[in-house]
């Protein structure tokens, strides 16, 4: 491979952001990065450099949709605080760090994430947790479409997504593992259904817990809905407690439920679909 400098377009403006280094204030192992109007490449480059330099807490201020914050970060114990709106693919491919967003997050939070934790003090967009295979994501409020899609568990890695509000269509689509929780307690849409249609469509592993009622018409053909049993509540309790602690809520009130469990009826839903030629 020819190694050469990455060609970063000349300092200028892309999509309304300036391609300049953000202003950084460092105090010991913490640093504050003011990203107001700064392009994502320069922001994330600054974060990576700070982490490589031993900084363990990075406070990003002025975030306004910059993408990929924390993407691919592999340093456990590192904490990134985002003040403002975290952009698409926040914590994508992340492996071990923690991102806490004080604001909303856009689409693709925790996309293909391996481990670590994301906390969003607000709402989050579509495809949250796509292909996630470990780590935990907590969203205080509502989430968009196709959340938890194709989450998958593997050996000791069990991804967890807890959403405090309501979710749109295709919640937990293609899920192959992990735990997906929907609480319905913090929502902007009180009169809408808890969860949209096609919930668990194509699901073939893992489990979903929803606080409230879910009707069969809201679900894909591959899942069954049952009342959560003691064992289920045992799985839920620590997750609800972690949610409550993150957002200052009352865990006991949430645990009052009732919860339903949505799980696949087969881990090989399409085994009979084909005839060999």
């Amino acid at each position, binding site marked *: 491979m020819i190694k050469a*400098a990455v060609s970063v377009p000349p300092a200028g403006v892309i999509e309304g952001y300036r391609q300049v280094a953000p202003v950084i204030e460092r105090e010991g192992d913490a640093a504050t990065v003011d990203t107001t109007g700064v392009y994502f*490449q320069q922001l994330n480059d600054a974060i990576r450099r700070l982490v490589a330099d031993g900084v363990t807490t990075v406070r990003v201020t002025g975030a306004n949709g910059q993408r990929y914050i924390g*993407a*691919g970060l592999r340093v456990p114990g590192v904490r990134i605080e985002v003040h403002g709106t975290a952009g698409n693919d926040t914590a994508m491919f992340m492996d071990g760090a923690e991102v806490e967003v004080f604001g909303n997050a856009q689409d693709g939070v925790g*996309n293909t994430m391996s481990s670590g934790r994301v906390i969003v003090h607000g709402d989050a967009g579509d495809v949250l947790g796509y292909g996630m*295979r470990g780590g935990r994501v907590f969203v205080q409020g509502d989430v968009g479409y196709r959340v938890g*899609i194709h989450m998958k568990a593997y*050996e000791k890695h069990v991804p967890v997504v807890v959403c405090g509000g309501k979710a749109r269509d295709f919640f937990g689509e293609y899920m*192959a*593992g992990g735990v997906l929780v929907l609480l319905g307690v913090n929502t902007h849409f009180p009169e809408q259904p808890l969860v949209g249609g096609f919930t668990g469509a194509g699901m073939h592993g893992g489990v979903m817990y929803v606080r409230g009622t879910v009707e069969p018409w809201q679900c894909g053909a591959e899942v069954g809905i049952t009342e959560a049993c003691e064992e289920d509540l045992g799985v839920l309790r620590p997750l609800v407690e972690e949610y409550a602690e993150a957002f200052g809520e009352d865990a006991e009130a949430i645990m009052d439920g009732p919860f339903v469990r949505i799980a696949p009826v087969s881990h090989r839903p399409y085994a009979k679909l084909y005839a060999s030629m």
Partner: protein
Amino acid sequence: MQQTFVQPEFRVRIDYDKCHKCGRCVQQCGWGVYDFAERPIPHDEKCRACHRCVTYCPAHCITIEKNALAFRENDNWSTNLVKGVWKQADTGGVLLTSMGNPRPYERIFDKLVLDACQVTNPSIDPLREPMELRTYLGRKPDAVQVESDGNGGFRLAEGGGMTNNLKLDTPIIFSPMSYGSVSLNVHRSLAMAAERLGILMNTGEGGLHEDLYPYQDHAILQVASGRFGLNPEVLGRAAALEIKIGQGAKPGIGGHLPGEKIDREVSATRMIPQGSDAISPAPHHDIYSIEDLRQLIYAIKEASGYKPVGVKIAAVHNVAAIASGIVRAGADYVYLDGFRGGTGAAPAVIRDHIGIPVEVAIAAVDQRLRDEGIRNQASIIAAGSIRSSADAAKAIALGADVVAIGTAALLALGCHLCQSCHTGKCSWGITTQKPELTRRIDPEWGAERLTNLVHAWSHELQEILGALGVNAVESLRGSRERLRSIGLDEHTCRVLGVKPAGM
């Protein structure tokens, strides 16, 4: 059970006069065709015509014949169509098959011929003169800065604008085939050969097994819709990353690796549970537009330290506009997979009826990128199906930078194109995870055969270049003036940018 109407496709004939009764055929057949009762007794209906038993019978006394049952002549209802209806009436299932589209669509490569120098421009003897096949895969900058090297020459200035490129010693690489669809020994063979040849193998969507880490600089890692086997560590290992949007054999549809093929090793590499189906959704659900594609390209770049990121698509009707979008989205290469590309499993209806030939896709994409002034921003890899060095040369002349071979590579490892990979019982130990079959491929042997094949094709490419009177494969790229068509219709010639022979 009801009697099926579908009669055996092949007849296994054994010349019992010559047979040693050694039983080797019983042991060699992956599909369990033979019983043994003093002598081997074949069950024709199970035979796939893979010729494993034929090859290893010490007495050379087995032949596989077509079961040529006569039907009343009917050009409309081919035997295959009739059998398909019967099979589906038996099962209610989607007909599943494998390998590339076998149907008799026009093969454009076979109707193109290359030029040679005569009198007015000397041809070159590649055995005695330098003949450059080296190819750099990736985005080329609009301009670079050079500086004096102090010895009267020049070198690229530090930070002179060059982008990360992958160096290939020959413009032939291995196409993506996932561990899971093929065996680990096949992956090892490909990886070892890629290293020896100075080229690349491609993991397909099943992740990079740790045994391949020593060869990681020669591996492209795929990011497909199932996101199997991906974490920042492996992203950091691979030489390049490839977003798989589509595959020539099954454009627009996802994939299932059946649970029975997911053993412990496959599950560890894919990072999924053992025994449950590995389902790849049809689309990436974070890509519904070119803008979304750009988002994923840059996510991968951010997470991998700005390695080259390519995008693989199936050649479909609107391929030129799609490729232009892919390049503008920031891809370092566009991988075009024609409708004859192979697969480990695909519904026959999709494999046989969707997509377009790679020849027209290459020409259309190359022309579009040139017209838009962005051809330098990405390389073009062409595949599906490159069957010989002649196909490779023609693909390059049509505008490809690099060709990728899958089926040809498997042929080198013993594949006999029996189109039964989806059964997971490949007698040749290629598309199976059964240990008694996979150990039939010794990676060292496999790597040597693959190396031989690519060396041979590279020599042939050099011969072709010599005949054309050029001394570097770069000079052939997109040089459609050096191609002529024999018997292609006017419209196809226009799309290809190729004149008819004689003009």
